């Protein structure tokens, strides 16, 4: 399926994103407000880049926001990204938006104004670091707040209640499910009679709010 995507901001993120999307046969318009940057990017992207301030409604309309399937706001200004996504969603009723958060302290503001998903490079890198350092105990792999769904990863500790027990005996809370076990450099989908071992990494899909219950099963004394 080919999408029409408007990318606001032709910095490193916007330019590369546009290039990838065009390679995947999507239709793309990039909007850049800096004249010099626009002229550089225009040499490669040609008609797929437009010069203008994407926070102005007429610029978005000129780019065809009424028929956009996706608007991605990746400028270096969080206010701009917030407002671009807000008008895309609420004025032009665009189904899908993605915002970049430059300053992680602004993540709350994106939430407050209902601009989701808001992607913060700092947070992503932090997640990766956490993934590399399993001593953190519980890692959020995926959060879909609107769908009320999360996937977390836990390392089963030596003295955890789950050790030596079959998955079906675990008494997992309603709204949670072990979907994968990583063991000996491989992963598999557990069956009802799979026995959990210390050192296993388990992936659990759950309703938000169940983290503490689930941690209690796989980490001794609930320390995460």
């Amino acid at each position, binding site marked *: 399926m080919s999408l029409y995507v408007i990318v606001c901001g032709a910095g490193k993120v916007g330019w590369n994103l546009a290039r990838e999307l065009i390679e995947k046969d999507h239709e793309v318009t990039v909007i850049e407000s800096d004249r010099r940057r626009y002229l550089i990017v225009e040499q490669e992207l040609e008609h797929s880049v437009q010069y203008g301030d994407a*926070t*102005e*409604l*007429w610029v978005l309309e000129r780019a065809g926001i009424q028929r956009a399937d996706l608007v991605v706001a990746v400028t270096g*200004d969080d206010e*701009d990204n917030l*407002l671009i996504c807000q008008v895309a969603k609420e004025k032009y009723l665009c189904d899908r938006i993605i915002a970049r958060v430059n300053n992680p302290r*602004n993540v709350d*503001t994106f939430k*407050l104004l209902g601009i989701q998903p808001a992607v913060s490079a700092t947070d992503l890198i932090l997640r990766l670091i956490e993934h590399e350092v399993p001593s953190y105990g519980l890692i959020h792999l995926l959060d879909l707040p609107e769908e009320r769904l999360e996937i977390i990863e836990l390392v089963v500790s030596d003295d955890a209640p789950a050790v030596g027990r079959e998955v079906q005996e675990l008494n997992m809370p309603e709204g949670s499910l072990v979907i994968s076990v990583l063991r000996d450099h491989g992963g598999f989908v557990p069956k009802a009679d799979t026995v959990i071992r210390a050192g296993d990494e388990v992936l659990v899909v759950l309703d938000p709010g169940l983290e503490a219950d689930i941690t209690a099963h796989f980490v001794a004394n609930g320390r995460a």
Partner: protein
Amino acid sequence: MVVGAGRVGSSVATSALLAGHVVSVLDADPLSHERLDVELGRSWEENGGRFTIGTALERDALDEAGMAESDVCIVCTNGDNTNLVVAQIAQRRYDVPRVIVRVLDPRRAAWYREQGLHTICPTQIAIDQLTAAALAPAPPA
């Protein structure tokens, strides 16, 4: 509470202070504090005013300036985008009863007004007045 003390913000802040209200000003530039002093003829604080140096988007700055206690919040920094975001933060996070925001872009001022923000658009006022003046019937010769 006045966010952004340029020409407009500092005048509004001074008038409110002289009318006997408690006024807290937030601006990123210490120079705007000097402008307030000059307008009053003596120090802003001596007259009972509050001043916080900080960025309007930072939660810490808004907390320190006392956004949560304010009855009226006037947002008039020199950036439309900052103003529109800060005004919505004031409304939604701090439940400020009256939020007034300056927006120079007429189309967005109109749209955000429809969404329930009290926007003031100096550009639209200038357009209306200039148009009226230009198109006024010529006085009899």
